[in-house]
């Protein structure tokens, strides 16, 4: 497998997103999110509902409304010879050119994202014509090709059918077909398999994997389950309370998680092998425990948002890199952090 080029396709720097509240100060849904994404790489953003993972994805396409970008940049570099463009500064037609074009997005609920009274093929062709300068006829044939690419049998016939004639898993394939018909460089998949059963889940993930490999699409896989990271992501960022709390190559984060929250997220998933525990670990257990220190974090106190300690809200936190390519967020005053500021990002592609 080839090495990814040294230029990141996307560099998100210090992103912060606020949501206004009627009777209170704005809610900071995303705070200081920073990462690099390379072509042909899958980055998993893992977190519970409310962690800010979806808002992060939406912000890249200017879809964070009613949230507001409070800070940050999202630098897009077509190639090393191109100037970087800040996606967060784009408005109107400029961002719409990216949306569904260079950056495609698929959502959890395929039924609500598809127009129920429009033939599936026409919907895909419409998206193609919106973003590329092709004839209606060519757009139509690209739609059929896209359906074939996502392994839908008899694509010519199925293109003439309506969304309700497809099963849940098939509809999600249609969404992916629509996303790839415009040949995006980045695919943002927000919980693409949550509503699907295990075998269909595996098929959809395999499909996304193939796009990454064959077309060097960079994928941002947004999920609540660290279980999905195994085998389907190169790197993973764990988010909580709007912040990246741990960032590392997928294999590293699964084998040697440093933050106790990541450990809890891993242990809460029932497994198909190994001993059956009486009780699954929950995040609540972590809150109750007295900050279990990972040996790899000696001297540092892992950052953890403690709702009972008002003072914690204004205390600074920082991502440190205790081992190569492995970042974890700690309280800034727990020890002088190494270097000034880290931009998590790993240039290598998947370790086979």
């Amino acid at each position, binding site marked *: 497998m080839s090495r990814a080029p040294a230029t990141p396709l996307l560099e998100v720097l210090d992103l912060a997103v606020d949501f206004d509240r009627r009777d209170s100060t704005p809610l900071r849904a995303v705070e200081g999110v920073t990462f690099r994404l390379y072509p042909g790489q899958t980055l998993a953003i893992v977190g519970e509902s409310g962690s800010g993972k979806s808002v992060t994805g939406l912000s890249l396409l200017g879809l964070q409304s009613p949230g507001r970008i409070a800070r940050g940049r999202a630098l897009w570099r077509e190639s090393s010879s191109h100037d970087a463009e800040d996606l967060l500064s784009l408005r109107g037609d400029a961002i719409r050119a990216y949306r569904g074009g260079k950056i495609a997005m698929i959502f959890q609920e395929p039924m609500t994202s598809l127009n129920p009274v429009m033939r599936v093929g026409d919907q895909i062709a419409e998206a193609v014509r919106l973003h590329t300068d092709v004839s209606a006829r060519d757009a139509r044939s690209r739609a059929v090709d896209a359906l074939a690419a996502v392994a839908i049998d008899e694509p010519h016939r199925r293109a003439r059918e309506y969304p309700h004639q497809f099963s*849940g898993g098939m509809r999600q394939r249609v969404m992916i077909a629509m996303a790839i018909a415009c040949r995006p460089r980045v695919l943002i998949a927000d919980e693409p398999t949550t509503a699907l059963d295990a*075998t*269909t889940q595996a098929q959809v993930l395999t499909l996304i994997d193939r796009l990454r490999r064959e077309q060097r699409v960079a994928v941002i896989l947004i999920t609540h389950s660290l279980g999905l990271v195994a085998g389907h992501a190169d790197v993973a960022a764990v988010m909580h309370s709007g912040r990246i709390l741990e960032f590392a190559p997928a294999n590293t984060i699964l084998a040697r998680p440093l933050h106790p929250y990541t450990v809890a997220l891993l242990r809460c998933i029932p497994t*198909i092998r190994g001993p059956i525990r009486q009780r*699954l670990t929950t995040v609540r257990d972590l809150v109750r425990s007295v900050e279990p220190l990972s040996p790899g974090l000696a001297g540092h106190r892992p950052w953890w948002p403690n709702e009972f300690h008002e003072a914690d809200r204004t205390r600074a936190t920082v991502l440190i890199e205790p081992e190569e390519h492995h970042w974890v967020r700690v309280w800034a005053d727990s020890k002088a952090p190494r270097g000034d500021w880290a931009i998590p990002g790993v240039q290598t592609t998947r370790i086979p």
Partner: protein
Amino acid sequence: MGTEPPTDAPVPPATALRTTNDGPLLSVRDLSVRFDGREVVSGVSFDLSEGQSLGIVGESGSGKSTVARAVLRLIPAASGRVLFEGRDLLALGSRAMREARRSIQMVFQDPGGSLNPRMRVEEIVAEPLRVFRLAADGPTLRRRVQSLLQRCGLPPDAADRYPHQFSGGQKQRIAIARAIALEPRLLVCDEPTSALDVSVQASILNLLTHLQRDMGIAYLFISHDLAVVRHMCHRIAVMRRGMIIEHGTREEVIERPAHAYTRALIAAI
């Protein structure tokens, strides 16, 4: 809260319904269900012992939820027998079935959809107790509801709030509190955690494990997630196209799957 209607014809307490047979709590024999002339469940048979869990796994469309609904008589069966405490539920008259329903409760996948949005949590959890006239007066009922909420890990002030004020996981706790209000002997759980984050799923599964140990409730546990079923269930039945294709203890089914389809399900995880 209103006054309790006079309890002139009280339903006998749940214990009186219990028979003294030593057989399984639930015994399903040759159950078939047809929709529009098409057989969607064919000849399904299984046993579930008291206080134990049986998991039924399969993909969507395999018929696993249909089995659960037919057992509860929420949909009619075409043929077969559903022996609960030795009596065939499918042969019961409506009054006898109503009594049997006290001992059999259900928890669904979508906790939001199974809770009446216009009712306060207290009313929701109290409803089965009211229907079966199991509380002498208002204060007794309220105390009973409080203890159920607490048992399911909900804060005391939950009683006065409405379902939309709760997260998905808390809604499922409310649904479970309602389901255990009558101290059932069998709880049918249809994908109870499939709509939840894995971290929330863990706490709901822990709650169900805990309740089973405390109350000795048997679970018929329907899920597409084999790992969850392995965690929860003593025995596992694998369904495909309306039929049980493999059935055994969790060790047998997961460690030594006999059927290629079961092996594929395990490999997909």
